[in-house]
């Protein structure tokens, strides 16, 4: 619903709060612009030169005034900083239970994959009222996923994952733009976010699913690529068990501890010698160049889905 003529739809849970900050900033801008303009106009008229020999009295300055017009702007920007940062911080982490969707950008189209396996190009169907978290990567150059109506934007980079989340609050179709210049048809790398009532969304999903969820597809890749031969689920294999790994701390051979997130899983597949779990040898082959982005996304989704069973700690056996 348009509130003002020059405003995009407020179609997400954060849109209104972002707009409120925007209006505050606009008000400050208008106020100070008007203050300066009017003061200058007033002085221009009142102190216009009346005779060619006028010599105004010199005024060196005024420390109290300097303090005043330093302190007030500093206070104002402090308010802006705190407001903007708090909002940003609050919006930075997706809520638990978000619908996880993979997005891949490539010159010059957007590809999306739903957990149920449904794929879309240049369109993304989402249900109303449920947070959606996008895990995004690029197949080539840097792109940017921008939905003005949701007030969200994030760069999409090759070789790594970035993510953004939103919760749609309004049914409708909204612009999706690429907002990082990416070559000839940058302007054409646009699409639509289609927000539907939950039951409409379910029927849409059911209408065209390939019959296989993203996690099932991931499990197939896991078997076909030979992952399952080393990563035995009981922890006795050559590689660590992946049960319950996702989202938890992992201890490395270097003594560091890292969290097993999307980026860690992806890196471990493509550059297996980068971070080796303590107690294991650097013998995992790399799959760089052997898996498509979609297969990688499916694997990540599958490993995410593995249950919370605790892996047995393997006895350390240094080479």
């Amino acid at each position, binding site marked *: 619903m348009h509130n003002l003529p020059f405003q995009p739809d407020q179609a997400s849970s954060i849109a209104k709060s972002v707009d409120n900050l925007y209006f505050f900033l606009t008000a400050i801008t208008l106020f100070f612009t008007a203050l300066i303009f009017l003061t200058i106009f007033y002085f221009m008229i009142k102190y216009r030169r009346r005779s060619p020999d006028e010599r105004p009295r010199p005024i060196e*300055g005024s420390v109290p005034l300097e303090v005043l017009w330093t302190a007030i702007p500093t206070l104002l920007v402090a308010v802006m900083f705190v407001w903007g940062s708090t909002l940003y*911080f609050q919006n930075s982490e997706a809520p638990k239970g978000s619908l996880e969707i993979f997005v891949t950008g490539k010159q010059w189209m957007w590809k999306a994959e739903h957990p149920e396996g449904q794929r879309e190009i240049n369109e993304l169907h989402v249900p109303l009222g449920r947070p959606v978290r996008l895990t995004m990567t690029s197949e080539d150059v840097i792109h940017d996923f921008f939905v003005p109506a949701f007030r969200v934007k994030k760069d999409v980079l090759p070789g790594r994952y970035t993510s953004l989340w939103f919760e749609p609050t309004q049914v409708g179709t909204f612009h999706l733009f690429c907002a990082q210049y990416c070559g000839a048809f940058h302007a054409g790398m646009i699409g639509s976010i289609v927000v539907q009532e939950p039951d409409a969304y379910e029927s849409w999903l059911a209408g065209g699913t390939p019959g296989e969820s993203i996690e099932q597809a991931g499990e197939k890749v896991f078997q076909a690529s030979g992952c399952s031969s080393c990563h035995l689920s009981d922890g006795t294999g050559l590689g660590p068990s992946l049960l319950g790994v996702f989202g938890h701390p992992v201890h490395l051979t270097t003594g560091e501890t890292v969290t097993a997130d999307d980026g860690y899983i992806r890196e471990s597949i493509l550059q297996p010698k980068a971070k080796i779990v303590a107690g294991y040898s650097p013998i995992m082959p790399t799959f760089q160049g052997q898996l498509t982005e979609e297969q990688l996304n499916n694997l990540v989704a599958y490993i995410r889905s593995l249950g919370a069973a605790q892996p047995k700690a393997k006895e350390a056996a240094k080479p």
Partner: protein
Amino acid sequence: MSTATLEPRVHAQRTYLNADYGWKSWLFTLDHKRIALLYLVSITFFFVIGGSFAVLMRIHLTEPQGALVQPETYNKLFTLHGIVMIFFFLIPSIPAVLGNFLVPLMVGARDLAFPRLNLLSWYIFIVGGAFTLYSAIAGGVDVGWTFYPPYSSIYSQTHVTAVAVGVFITGFSSILTGLNFIVTIHKMRAPGLTWFRLPLFLWAMYATSIIMTLGTPVLAITLFLLALEHLFHVGIFSPELGGDPLLFQHLFWFYSHPAVYIMILPAMGVVSEVIACFARKRIFGYKIVAFSSVAIAVLGFLVWGHHMFVTGQSVYAGLIFSLLSFLVAIPSAIKVFNWTSTLYKGSISYEAPMLYALGFIGLFTMGGLTGLFLASLATDVHLNGTYFIVAHFHYIMVGGAVMGYLGGIHFWWPKISGRKYPNAWAALAAAIVFVGFNLTFFPQFILGYLGMPRRYAFYPAEFQVLNVMSSAGATILGVGYLIPLVYLIWSMRYGPVAESNPWGATGLEWKTPSPPPPENFAEIPVVNEEAYAYSAQAQEATGD
């Protein structure tokens, strides 16, 4: 009172313009004033080129599907518009033209510290420009003036290396000019000219020179690395080889953010001189304004990350850069308040330079305040990569820097050329520029908030009305810029001859004839009064 000797006004007086003739006396000159004119001609040339690209872009954008060119061509237009305007017009403009001309005069010296280095700077500028023009003529470049890899390093099929080399070379022109100014201001001030007696223009040039010398080398190494990546695919910015495209962005913006202060600080210096002269008052809060220039230069090096808030970088990095970006706005605000206060109980007249200076204050205030929207993390997420950014930086760079440059040209034109121009035409042009500018760029704030991304060769139809408004404004703005070209050139032959100090301004440059003799002063002046001693003029029996 100053003891500079006044030359008698004889028609055949020897000036830097007529002391020697022939192309060699210009192309091999070591006179800072002639070098300033060489720059004036060169940057005007680049301004026309960059401006032509802008005109083509705005014509193209009157139609949602694009009215003029193919998307690939549009992408080359905005790339070259940015590169030419930033590196070959804005960055040199005030420093290389007005700075070169005025710094020695204002400090009371006969030339800069290193005249041969100064001439070399101009030649370096020309060679860099030649590489860039070559790349434009040979088919153009389409990577944006920001050159982000992997697009620029791997995917673009255009003349990336040629233009990277061109900008790399031109950077040294900037570095050497800054070096020259720093040494001149430190070592060659006339007797009695202490730091706090310097005109604020010199404080501004000094702060600018710090940025030019410290920041530009980082751009140089960045472009060097990018060129190597583009030519040899060594991996430094390529993810599939273990490289990081964001490293390029950090390196690039480490220079390119301070670069915007290179573009604005000199204009602020001009505004200080013009306001003081046309209000006939010492700038209110002189020391604060002087220090604020240095503060901007220092703080400006600490905020580059605000260009990268949506790249997926750490939230904590974002917080730090956001805080610092807010802080860097404060010294600029202080300047605006001090300039406004200078008008209080002044004696104000409205010749063209003053109109430009007042226009600067208004437009810079708006541009600067819109920067706060971008320093604020939550709003920047929405506004980054949209036309809001385009509007913000054009308010600062065109509404600010270009107005400051034109104001400075109009203020010192009588000194530079020895002629006066018709004030009515100048005032008209200033008004046209002001109106045209606002019509061009204000709609772009709205477009940005609505979500129209930048660098789009075509766009959804709902954005057309605002685009057409912007293009209409651009036409008016273009006319406004052409008018001074005409009357300034006209004035060189037909304008009334200017006396030493037609504006009744303070400052050593006004105590020598218009135009100055090659050696600037018959005798090096001795300074025993503060800057902007306008009220002291009342006591002066012998006027200019």
